[in-house]
């Protein structure tokens, strides 16, 4: 089950519902009793066009786009179904179309999704929906992924009998901090109203005015401030609700879509990264019924912006008196490895981020192995605590805390006070920060100055980077592939959407380079290779394969998490 509780699951009937026989476009098929007719058709590759129906929201039945022809078993004088030659019930067809979204499957239900009656209904409904719709497509952000455009093309009649003036409604209405409303484009499907009421629990939207002047409005004293408000822009079938962040930034058809996961908290919502030519424009949620269902929070959705910040570190460099001196990667890696090798193993500590992927953490593990002598090398992750909201957001803001625990890198920062103590006492004289700021993790600035070696690997300049002797620019989540374990123990994949900027490199490349320079064993270049090596040495991941993770991830066995 998803980590968020949906009030409705029209597409997922309960497992114990019995199978019934349904007549779908001339074929008898078996479906669970009570399954929504739109979902019945979808299961067999047929699309019943719809606007207001959403599998996770209550049924409104107001767009009338999903009209279909319905049949019921013909009853004989004995009130028993009349059977045909093959033992199937004979159907009699209801003379008027029914709405599919409000009909559920029962024994002997007949469905016609493409009869002449249905097609003429669809044409008529499309004509009504388009009567007052503005010709905004050139300036509308939804163009290219607009259901009204698509269905007008597929089911519309191509011309309108509407010769009157279109109704004017408010445009560019600011209804919330992140979302903008265009009432002229709205087709009054009420999906957003139902989402706000049923899932976001912020009941502030509604329909006002009458007849042709019907429009979506926000409560006059409220703003749509919910942390889930941007989901309404996703479920809006037209361009009535648009996100301020993505508005007029790029047309949808230019975006390359990469399936990945959100790294803003431990939930690991499945997302699609929309990027073009090395620039990420938006994240949109991707359906995964084991994690986030159809939704994601605004904070995670907008959390990608720092990857294009001007504070990105772009060049590997060494600190000299005058500042940072850029170097070539092989040289820098060789010199870093040399200075790491010279250290007493007990005097080195690795401050690792639980925002790294399993593969990177595994390489950290390998690096630790190849450096250790008699004594262990200290490693710990830095915890990030937030506020869980009871929906999707987790109180743990590190996306891979579970992975770090499984791979033995750290356990939610329990040992951080000890690290501080060891630095204070002078036992630890060298620190390797991986995507973490030591000062943010509680090590005072003056103690950092005392270190004989501070290696920093990360993406954004921070206080530790300013003091680091070596700076190694790494990759953000959109620039690397890998796997992470979310708070429910789902192992999920990230995929690389854009190349790393400047001379930054993927972290597995950097860590592998260090391991090789230290004379360690080669774990392979590609993430799938590293994954299979990791699986071989980590019992918790036993039996996992990189391709087997798929787009939806695989849950860890219960005892491992």
């Amino acid at each position, binding site marked *: 089950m998803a980590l968020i509780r949906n009030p409705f699951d029209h597409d997922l009937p309960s497992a114990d519902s019995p199978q019934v026989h349904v007549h779908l476009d001339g074929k008898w098929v078996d479906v669970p009793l009570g399954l929504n007719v739109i979902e019945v058709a979808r299961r067999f590759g047929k699309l019943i066009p719809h606007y207001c129906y959403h599998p996770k929201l209550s049924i409104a039945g107001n767009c009338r786009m999903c009209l279909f022809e319905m049949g019921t078993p013909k009853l004989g004088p004995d009130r028993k179904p009349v059977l045909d030659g093959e033992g199937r019930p004979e159907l009699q067809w209801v003379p008027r179309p029914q709405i599919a979204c409000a009909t559920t499957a029962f024994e002997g239900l007949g469905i016609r999704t493409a009869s002449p009656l249905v097609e003429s209904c669809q044409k008529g409904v499309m004509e009504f929906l388009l009567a007052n719709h503005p010709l905004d*497509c*050139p*300036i509308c952000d939804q163009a290219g992924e607009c259901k009204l455009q698509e269905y007008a093309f597929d089911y519309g009649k191509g011309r309108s009998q509407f010769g009157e003036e279109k109704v004017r409604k408010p445009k560019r209405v600011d209804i919330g901090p992140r979302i903008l409303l265009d009432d002229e484009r709205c087709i009054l499907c009420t999906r957003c109203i139902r989402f706000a009421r049923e899932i976001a629990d912020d009941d502030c939207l509604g329909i006002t005015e009458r007849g042709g002047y019907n429009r979506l409005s926000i409560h006059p004293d409220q703003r749509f401030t919910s942390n889930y408000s941007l989901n309404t822009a996703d479920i809006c079938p037209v361009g009535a609700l648009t996100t301020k962040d993505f*508005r*007029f*930034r790029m*047309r949808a*058809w230019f975006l390359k879509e990469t399936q990945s996961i959100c790294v803003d908290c431990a939930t690991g919502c499945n997302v699609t990264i929309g990027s073009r030519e090395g620039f990420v424009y938006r994240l949109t949620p991707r359906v995964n019924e084991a994690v986030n269902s159809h939704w994601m929070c605004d904070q995670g959705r907008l959390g990608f912006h720092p990857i294009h910040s001007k504070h990105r570190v772009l060049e590997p460099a060494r600190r000299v008196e005058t500042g940072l001196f850029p170097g070539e990667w092989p040289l820098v890696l060789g010199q870093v490895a040399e200075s790491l090798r010279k250290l007493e193993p007990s005097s080195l500590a690795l401050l690792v981020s639980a925002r790294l992927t399993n593969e990177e953490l595994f390489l950290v593990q390998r690096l630790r192995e190849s450096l250790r002598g008699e004594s262990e090398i200290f490693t710990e992750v830095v915890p990030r605590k937030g506020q869980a909201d009871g929906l999707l957001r987790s109180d743990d803001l590190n996306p891979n805390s579970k992975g770090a625990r499984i791979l033995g890198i750290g356990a939610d920062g329990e040992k951080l006070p000890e690290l501080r103590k060891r630095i204070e006492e002078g036992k630890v004289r060298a620190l390797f920060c991986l995507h973490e700021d030591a000062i943010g993790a509680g090590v005072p600035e003056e103690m950092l100055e005392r270190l004989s070696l501070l290696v920093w690997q990360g993406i954004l300049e921070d206080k530790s980077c300013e003091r680091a002797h070596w700076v190694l620019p790494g990759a953000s989540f959109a620039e690397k592939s890998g796997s992470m374990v979310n708070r429910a123990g789902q192992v999920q994949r990230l995929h690389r959407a854009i190349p790393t900027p400047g001379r930054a490199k993927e972290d597995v490349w950097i860590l592998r380079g260090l391991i090789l320079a230290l004379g360690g064993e080669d774990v392979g270049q590609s993430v799938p290779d590293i994954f299979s090596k990791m699986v071989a040495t980590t019992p918790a991941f036993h039996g996992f394969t990189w391709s087997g993770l798929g787009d939806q991830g695989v849950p860890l066995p219960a005892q491992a998490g």
Partner: protein
Amino acid sequence: MIVVRRPDLSWVEQLYLPGFWEGLKVTWHHFVARLSGKTRVTLQYPEERPPIPPGYRGAPVLVKDEEGREKCVSCQLCEFICPPRAIRIAPGGIPEDSPYAKVEKAPQEFWIDMTRCIFCGYCEEVCPEEAIFLLPQHYSLNGRSREELLHDKAKLYEMGGVLPLPIRKWANK
């Protein structure tokens, strides 16, 4: 598909001799015109300019309407359709205090790389706002560097100027 029927030729026409005779007449006509100086082949370019036929596809430029409003709304269809990918657009919004706020969208920047353009005219054809045209007067393009041939928005509007057209899509919106 149109099926064009071959003409039925009479037996005189089937000899082809009348055809040859007509062809030779044209050749003779040109021969005499050249000898007598009536036809001049060489133009003193750039002082003398050839007549450019209507519909000639010159450089693509952006135009404004008669009120001086930039017509382009940065829908990026031309960028999408452009076969050599000569067009780049940075889309942007129109501020709410502008008289054309209802248009909502306008390009922040618009580049056409004339070293890539193949003058196919798809951009003009695809434009839903009638904002980009391949104007015949811009048949002669030259520059001293590649940068000079990368036309930006200011240059494109300077070349395009005002092109009044009967359709006023946004006037009564």
